[in-house]
């Protein structure tokens, strides 16, 4: 008995929306760059989950293949992002993104 026969897809939509919003909230709410990174991961996963849900509901494996690619991109992003974070921390002795305010006029 799989979920798609008993759970309507609207529930998945709602769940993913909520997850995504939590990710956005994390980005806005916290100043620690690591936590912001994690929030971004939450957002990515919300999208992944939705893709898988649609893939199953439509019986189309392409959606799941797409999730693979997103995972690959996420892994690359995390690797590079964390490396940048290391560099930033080495220079500023802080992981506070408000320190990164050189990008102005």
């Amino acid at each position, binding site marked *: 008995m799989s979920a798609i026969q008993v759970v309507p897809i609207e529930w998945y939509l709602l769940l993913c929306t909520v997850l995504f919003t939590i990710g*956005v909230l994390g*980005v*806005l709410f916290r*100043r620690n760059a690591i936590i912001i990174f994690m929030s971004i991961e939450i957002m990515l996963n919300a999208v992944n989950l939705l893709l898988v849900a649609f893939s199953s509901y439509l019986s189309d494996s392409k959606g799941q293949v797409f999730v693979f690619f997103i995972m690959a991109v996420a892994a690359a992003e995390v690797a590079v992002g964390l490396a940048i974070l290391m560099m930033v921390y080495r220079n500023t002795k802080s992981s506070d*993104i*408000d320190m*990164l*305010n*050189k*990008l*102005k*006029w």
Partner: protein
Amino acid sequence: MIKLVWLVPLLPLIGFVIIGLFGKKLSKGIVGTIGSGTVMAAFAVALGIFFELKGGTQKEFTIELFNWISAGKLSIPFSFLIDPLSSLFLLIITGIGFLIHLYSTGYMSHDEGFSRFFAYLNLFIFFMLLLVLGSNYLIMFVGWEGVGLCSYLLIGFWFKNTAFNNAAKKAFIMNRIGDLGFLLGIILIFVTFGSIGYHDVFEQAKNMATGNPTLTAIALLLFVGAMGKSAQLPLYTWLPDAMAGPTPVSALIHAATMVTAGIYMIARSNVLYTLSPDAMNVVAVVGVCTALFAATIGLAQNDIKKVLAYSTVSQLGYMFLALGVGAYTGAVFHVMTHAFFKALLFLGAGSVIHAMGGEQDIRKMGGLKKYISTTHITFLLGTLAIAGCFPFSGFFSKDEILAQAYEHNKLLWFLGILGAAMTTFYMFRLYFLTFHGKFRGTHEQEHHLHESPKSMTIPLIVLAILSVVGGLVGIPAALGGTHFLEAFLSPVFEFSSFRIVQAASHETEYMLMGIATLIMILAIYFAYTVFVKNNRVPAAEGDETSAIHKLVYNKYWVDEIYENLITKPLNMISEAFYKLIDNQVVDGIVNGVGSTVKWLSSTIRLVQTGNTGFYIFVMVISIVLILFSQLF
């Protein structure tokens, strides 16, 4: 041969390109050969076209070369129209053009701008041919502007002289006024008929009522263009000043060809004019006024070329008189004969100037017939031709115009004959002062006197022969002729001919010829008494003269009136606009926009705090707004 018509304008263009690009590297002989050769080749083709047209039954050919402009409703092919009128003009342009090129090889041989001169001259021939060959008004306009440009370049040929440059600018700007009228006329034609091809326009116009106001407006606007190009009142003042250019230029452009473009245009548009009698009256009145006005000025000029220039203006006035009274054939006939004798006179004057070493003042000449006999004889023939002496060419064309004017309106005829009398007088004044009496120049000049080289005298002789016999193509029926020219041109003026007043009875014509000849003889006799018997010489600069003489000598102060009435106020307005509108308003707006943007950007850039959190916040809010707007 007609299929080869594209060769006619192309040959001078090739000449222009070769001379213009490589002229400096080529020797003068080669430049002269290319320049004259291309025009002669064009003349040969034109001759072939003429005879084919004369022999054939079809009198109108349209040779479409390529599609030139095609935009929306407007479709203008680049095509040539060959009919008796254009083929006749082709002959005049290339034939006289060739003779003048030949003459120039001698006349300009010592000039450092020799190759430049021939390049311009060839370019001029090209544009002039385009003007008469085009099968629609736009090609005519292109040629029209092109000849204006060449005229400008050649008047200011000796560009180191400021006065010459000013004369060139004057010619260019005055022509511009006329060109504006012409352009407006073309636009009005397009708006009215939806086409600017001659054929379409005339076919449609033939169905319109006589005196249609739109047609009258078109005819008047086109006439404004003709006024500028053909130096009619009130736009004539550029032509006398245009004598600043080399003499062959005066002969070719400002006597024989370019200034007759206005006549060609009106003759081409004869359908439009025939349908608007008011416009024709305007043309006739302007023409006769110009003829008289310029003739009176010519009476008192002392510069040999200025006299001829005013004479040209006056003769152009006759041609417009002819057009105005509906004598289209007469006008074209006069264009042809005038091209012969006026080119001859100018070239003769050039030969005199050449002999005198650059001197142009007839008060310093005199008795030249001993020294330069060829020039003297040809000049005399030209003078007799312009005076209208039987059986020289001028007699026939002038007689035709005056006869038509007599039938149309006696007053026009009277004014015309008055102008003719003055023409005879000042031309013989010029002739007597130059060639008779005692030499009045310096010893040095007397020593320098010599006949011009063969390259200059041969064109003189050819033109003299043409001036003498050129009238034979148009012997009126009254004298037992058939008037070949009228028969030849009749297809072009077919529509208008019903309106043309049939030449008067032979008795009237004999009477008019008699009066004209009598008046001519009187004028010659008068000139002879004054300038040969009494040896009178025009007053030197600064001498006390009568008020009328002063008025005429100073050309009625028209230049000064224009200067004060138009140029100076224009300059003042421009100055005011420059200082007020341009400096204050326009610059204020431009600078104001700049400084406002600068101030705004220096203020708004503070929004860019560099705070990443803030950016994200704004981003999220924006996404919310965008999605929100999508909801509804």
